[in-house]
Structure formats: C-alpha cells, structure tokens
C-alpha cells in the first residue's frame, strides 16, 4: 500500500516537472503572445496541480495537504485572471 | 541623559503635531526649538558636572541593546543644532510660503539629535538614511528646478549608505558586535577591518560631501529653498562628519590611523584649494556659498587627518571649533544670500553690484560671515584656524601643509572679497527694492554670534581641550 502511494506520488511529481519544463520551453519558443500565454498557464495550472498531488500524498498531516490545495486554487485562479488581462491588453493594442 | 532625550523628543512630537494640524508652523517650530535648546543646555551642564553618561535602551544587557551616550561634545552638538534651528526658523517664519517645510524641519532636528546621541553602528545607518530622506525631501520643496538635483542627491546618498552598510556588515561578521564603544576596545588591524573602514569612510565622505565625493552638494544646496540651504550646510553635512570623526579617532585600530590620516589630510588640502577655486569661479550667488562649504569642510578633514597622523590633540579642538564656526557663519551667509536674491530678483553674483547701498544689512551679514570663513581675527573661524596652524609651525616637515592652509586662506579671501568689492561698486539707478529689515537683521544674527565666539575664546578653547579627549 505504502509502496504504491510512494510510486504514485513520484509519478505525479515527475508529471508536474514535465509540464513546467514544457511550459517554460513554450514560453521561450512560441511565436506570439497567445501561444505563449497558453503554454504558461497550462504549465502553471496542470504542472502545479500534479506537484500538489504528488506532495499531498506524501504529506505527513492532512493540514499541509489542504494548505497546498488552497495554494493551488489561488495560483490557478490568479493565473487565469492575469492571462485574461494580458490577452485583452494585447487585443486593445492591436485594435489601436 | 533625560534632558538630552527631552531635547530629542520635543522636535519629534512637534513634527508629528504639525502633520496633523499644519497651521502656525513657524511659531510652533520656534517654540519647540527654544525648548529643545534649553533642554540641550541643561544636558550640557549636567554632563559637564557629572561626567559622561550612557544608557542601554530597554534595560537589555550590553551588546544586545542599543547604547545612547552623552558626552560634552554630543551635548554641545545637540545645543548647537537647536540653536541653528531656532535662528533659521526665526528667519523663515517671516518668509515661508510652504507649510510642508515645518514638519520636515522638526523631523530633521529630531533626526540629528538621534544621530548625535547614538552609539551603535547600525542605528547610525538608520539615522543617516533618515537624514538623507529628510534632506532630499526638503531640497525638493523648492519645486521644478530642484527636483533633478534632489534625485541626484538621493542616488548618491543611497550609494553611500550601501557602502556604509556593507562596512557595518563586515564589522559585524568580523567582531559580532555593533556597539561602538565595545568595538573600540576590540578592533585589530586586519584586512577585514581595513576594508570595512574604507567602505564606511567612503560612504560617509559622500554623505558629508567631502572632496572629491562632493559633486551632489553644490546643485542641491544652491537650488533648495534658502532656509533649507542654511540647515543643510550648517547641520546636515556635519552628521556624517561626526560619525567619521568618532570612527577614526576611537574605533580605528592603531595600524590604520596613520594611513587614514594621511589620506584625509591630503584630501582636505585638495578640498580647500579646489573648492575655493570653484567658489571663486561660479557665476551664481548661492552656488558660490555652496562651493565654499566644500572648501571649508576641507579644514575639518585636514584637522582630522593631522590628529590621526601625528596624534595632535589640538587639532581635534580645532575640528570642533570649525564645525561650530562654520555652521554659524554658513547659516548667516545663506540667509543673507537668500535675502539679497529675493531683493534683487536675480540669482547671479553680478546682481549684487551696489548691494552695500541697497541692502546694507544683508550685505554686512554676508561680509561678516565671510570674514569668519576666511579666518579674520577675532572671529570663531580665526580661533579654529589658529589652533590648526600653531602645531604645524613647530616642525619643518609640516610646513608644506601650513603653506597650503595659508594659500587656502587667500583663496577664500578671494571669493569673499569678489562679492564685497562688487557690493561696494556704485549702484545702478533703478526703483528702490523692497526690503524686509527684520529679515535682514535675523540673517545677521548668526554672523554676530560667530564673532562673539572670540569674546569667550580662552575659556572655550580650554574647555574643549579638556572634553575633546
């Protein structure tokens, strides 16, 4: 049981790291701002979610797992808002 | 100690009060500086009677607590600050158009008092930073023209603070102590200490506008409002200077004092000559007065350097006398310059043609203050210069320095007489300028005080020799 949980947690952490690396490469390499935003927010939300899952399984107490969950929710929401703002600003600039 | 703390708290609370109720700033500040002066004099009497005092704040043990210390010199500077503040606020309450000035001036007073009393390297950093921010804000009060000099002043003084703070960090890393009096028993002349002393000295030299790190001073001091220029020149540059003097005379290990003294003395001579020359050349009146501050600070550096290099006790007395005499003379000079600038509506030196007839009292104040800067007997400036020169004559090796001091006297005479001769020229016919007699007399007051120092010269020198260790 314990062994399996450790493996799952490792898998989740690896997946999180993968998404972050992919997001970073996307941010650096994608041509325009919309693609870049797409890469970054996906990395933030998904990558961080996997990390939280991975570490949450290994947490010693459910307090810290809950705290990480709250952090993830906040990060996801704020990245959505900032992504929206950036995209919208870009649109306004284009129209002018 | 309590009197000194009262002298510090009065302006602090006045400043806060004026932020809440910004009316009648002038009278309030005059009142608070009078009370603060009285408290400072009481603390001076107390400390002379019963010896040096120190207090560990909060009752925490040594090392851990910040130590405030009161010695005759600190008490004297405390009283001097209150006196200058009183003189300037008396003058400025007739002319001030900006309510923001009074709160800042009170906070400046409190900051300086905190600086004189402090005895902790990091606490000095905080007071220095407070001092710079207050000064920069006050320079910027003059409006559009003064903002760029103020910004430049701020950047250089931040750079200086960071040098100082890095020095403090090295000292703490090396000795694990911030208390200045304990450090003065511990320091040894190794690389870390030398580097820390170098960094702190450079930082304090920028803040104190000591040559060649003075570049921010002339534009900032000359663009500021008149009262601010007077306060900055008379008091603010003395704060870093005070710390520098304490660091080198008490804390620096023996191995370093020799080199440090030589460096400071040479820089002092350069400051005297170059600053004087710039003062002679500049076309603007207030800038001329500002450059003269750069030059006069050279005497202080020279006195400190000689003290360190040859262990001459007399030069330390000369140093404190210079600080007092220069503060009073510069207050008078800036107030007179501002008054004349207001009367003639022109910033240039050439506008003073015939000022001896059109604005006789202000011009007289300017000339009298200039006399003390040159070192004409029997002024305070003369006393200080004589004390500095006397030990130089005894030794043939020191004659070049004596010669440099005499040459610098000639240079300062040149820039003062340049104004005076212009003033005695014939006045151009024009409408009679509007004069404010009271303001002019108030501008003259500090200059009279500096000449009055000569009346009490003997007891003053004896007393200073006794207390200035």
């Amino acid at each position, binding site marked *: 049981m314990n062994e399996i949980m450790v493996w799952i947690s490792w898998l989740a952490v690896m997946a999180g790291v993968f998404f972050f690396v992919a997001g970073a490469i996307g941010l650096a390499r994608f041509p325009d701002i919309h693609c870049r935003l797409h890469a970054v927010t996906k990395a933030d939300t998904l990558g961080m979610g996997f990390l939280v899952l991975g570490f949450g399984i290994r947490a010693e107490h459910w307090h810290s797992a809950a705290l990480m969950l709250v952090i993830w929710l906040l990060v996801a929401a704020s990245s959505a808002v900032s992504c*929206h703002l950036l995209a919208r600003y870009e649109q306004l600039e284009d129209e002018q | 100690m309590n009197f000194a703390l009262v002298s510090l708290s009065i302006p602090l609370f006045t400043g*806060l009060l004026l932020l809440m109720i910004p009316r009648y700033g002038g009278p309030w500040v005059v009142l608070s500086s009078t009370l603060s002066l009285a408290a400072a004099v009481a603390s001076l009497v107390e400390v002379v009677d019963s010896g040096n005092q120190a207090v560990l704040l*909060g009752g925490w043990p040594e090392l851990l607590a910040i130590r405030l210390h009161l010695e005759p010199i600190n008490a004297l500077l405390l009283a001097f600050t209150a006196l200058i503040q009183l003189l300037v606020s008396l003058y400025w309450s007739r002319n001030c158009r900006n309510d923001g000035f009074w709160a800042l001036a009170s906070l400046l007073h409190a900051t300086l008092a905190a600086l004189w009393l402090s005895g902790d390297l990091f606490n000095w950093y*905080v007071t220095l930073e407070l001092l710079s921010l207050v000064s920069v804000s006050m320079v910027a009060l003059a409006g559009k023209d003064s903002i760029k000099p103020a910004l430049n002043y701020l950047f250089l003084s931040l750079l200086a603070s960071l040098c100082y703070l890095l020095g403090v960090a090295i000292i703490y890393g090396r000795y694990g102590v911030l208390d200045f009096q304990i450090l003065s028993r511990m320091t040894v002349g190794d*690389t870390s200490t030398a580097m820390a002393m170098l960094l702190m000295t450079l930082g304090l030299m920028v803040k104190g506008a000591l040559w060649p790190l003075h570049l921010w001073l002339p534009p900032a001091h000359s663009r500021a409002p008149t009262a601010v220029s007077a306060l900055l020149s008379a008091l603010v540059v003395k704060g870093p200077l005070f710390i520098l003097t304490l660091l080198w005379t008490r804390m620096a290990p023996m191995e370093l004092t020799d080199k440090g003294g030589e460096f400071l003395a040479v820089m002092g001579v350069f400051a005297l000559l170059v600053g004087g020359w710039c003062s002679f050349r500049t076309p603007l009146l207030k800038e001329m007065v500002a450059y003269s501050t750069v030059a006069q600070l050279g005497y202080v550096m020279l006195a400190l350097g000689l003290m360190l290099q040859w262990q001459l006790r007399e030069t330390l007395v000369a140093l404190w006398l210079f600080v007092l005499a220069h503060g009073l003379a510069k207050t008078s000079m800036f107030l007179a310059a501002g008054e004349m600038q207001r009367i003639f509506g022109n910033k240039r030196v050439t506008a003073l043609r015939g000022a001896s007839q059109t604005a006789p009292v202000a011009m007289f104040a300017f000339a009298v203050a200039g006399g003390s800067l040159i070192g004409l007997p029997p002024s305070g400036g003369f006393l200080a210069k004589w004390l500095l020169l006397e030990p130089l004559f005894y030794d043939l090796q020191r004659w070049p320095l004596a010669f440099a001091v005499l040459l610098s006297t000639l240079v300062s005479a040149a820039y003062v007489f340049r104004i005076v001769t212009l003033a005695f020229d014939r006045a151009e016919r024009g409408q009679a300028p509007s004069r404010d007699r009271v303001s002019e007399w108030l501008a003259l007051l500090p200059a009279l005080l500096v000449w009055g120092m000569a009346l009490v010269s003997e007891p003053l020198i004896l007393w200073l020799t006794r207390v200035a260790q």
Partner: protein
Amino acid sequence: MMGGPWLFDIALGVLLVVLAIASIHARNLYAGVVMFISFGLVAALTWTYLGAPDLALAEAAISAGLTGVLLFAALARIGNTGSTPFTPRRLPALLCLAVAGLLMVTLWPLARNPSVLPGMAMANLPRTGVDNPVTGVLLNFRAWDTLLELAVLLVALLGSRGLRPTPEEEPVPWPLLTAWSRLLVPLLTLFGGYLLWRGGNWPGGAFQAGAMLAAGAVLLRLNGLLPEVAWRNPVVRGLTIAGLALFATIAALTAWLGDGWLNYPPGTDNALMMLIEIIATLSIATVLTLLVAGNKTELEP
C-alpha cells in the same frame, strides 16, 4: 561534493546574478522591470533557504507587489525615452569586477567566524514575552531602530507628497479583475491579520502584515473600488502618523514615569507590544498605500 543541495544552491545563485544583470541591462525597460520582480521572488526563495522566513515574507510582499506596482507606474509616466543608448565600456565593468573580487577576499574569512550575539539574544528571549526571535529583536532589543524606521517610512511619504506630477486619467477597470479583487482582498486582509497575530511566535509581524494590507488596498484602489485615499482627510493623516506617535509616546512615557527610554514596565510589556504591533501595522499599511497609490492630483492642504 556535487550533491542535491549544492545543485539547488548553484541554481539559486546563478539565477540571482543573471536576473540582476538582466534587470539592469535589459534593452527594453518593461522587460527589465519584469526581471527585477522575478529577482525579488528568487531573493525571497533564497531567504527561505538560508533560514530567514520573516525576510522572505517581507521581500515577496515588497519586491513582487509594491515595488513592482511603483516601477510600472513610473515606467508608464516616464516612458522608455533615453534608455537605450548604453555604450558598453570596458573600464567600469573591469573596475566593478575588481571590486567584487576585493569584497570576496574580505568576506571570505568571515564565514568561519562565530558570533556571540545570537546566543545572547536567545538567552534573553524569554524576558521579551515573545517566541519569535526576530520580533523580539525588533520590538525589544532594537526597538529604537524600529521606531526610527517608522519615521523613515513617514518621511518618504512626506517627500513624495510634495511632488505634483500631471494628473493621470483613471484607467477603466475590467470586470474580471474587479471580481477577482473582490475575492482576493478579503483573503489578503485575513492573511495580513494572521501574519500579525502569529508574528509573536512564528515568522511574521507588523511589517509583513502591513505590506499585505497595503497590497490589498492598492489592488482595490487600482480597480476604483476604494474611495480616494487623500492626505487631506484627517483620518488618513492620523493613521499614517499613529504608529510613530504611539511608539514615541510610549518611549517618552517609559522614560518619564518608568525605568528608562523604551524600557517597558514588567507585566505590561506583552500588551504594550501587541498595541504597538497593531497600530504600526495600520500605519505601515496606510503609508505604503499612499506611497504606491496615493492621490496624485491633490494640492497641499
């Protein structure tokens, strides 16, 4: 020796240096400001890693939040003009490299020097009535520094207030941002209060809490949800000076009636410190809000 921890150290250090150089020398100022904000975040991470969580909290709130807003506001007004010509000269760079080398040589021996002060601070900590050593130092051993620091903050506000740049038109807030602020600000306030409350025992304290509250207020102000925070309002004025005034009054009263300047009378020290912390938090929050998002158009009172 190239184990895991070392890898992390090197990554942090290299990031710090690269971001520092990039933020100063970025061709585009906007990019420079973004780099600087990231620098602040990496610095906060470094403080945590070096065992200073109090600093990390403050640094994150300051660098990423308030300084960022200040820099962007200044950038919008000043513009990019005159920023590109950056003649790379060799002399200053070499000089500064030499300075870095010299500093390193000086700092090198210090890493092995032990210090007595931490032990003393820890030994005296029980007498302060708080468990968080940093709060103990700030409000007890070095309370005088903290008092003057409040004065520094106040003076910065006074200095900035006298400057009157051209009025700027208020940007139209976007609905999503407004909605998000409505959700975020209560959370920030809650977190600020939490930081203040736990500051006695755990990392946190007046300054961190004040910065957090200020961040919330600035967010509301930028969205037009908060009425003008104007200096001419006596309540605002009172709040800005309250921290310093209270602290100084306590200092004066302890000197007058008690054992000495800032020597809290035994028994009341805990209550006094809590009072100072709360009022200082409000004061710091007001001053920071005014500094970052104060009303620019008002004239002198």
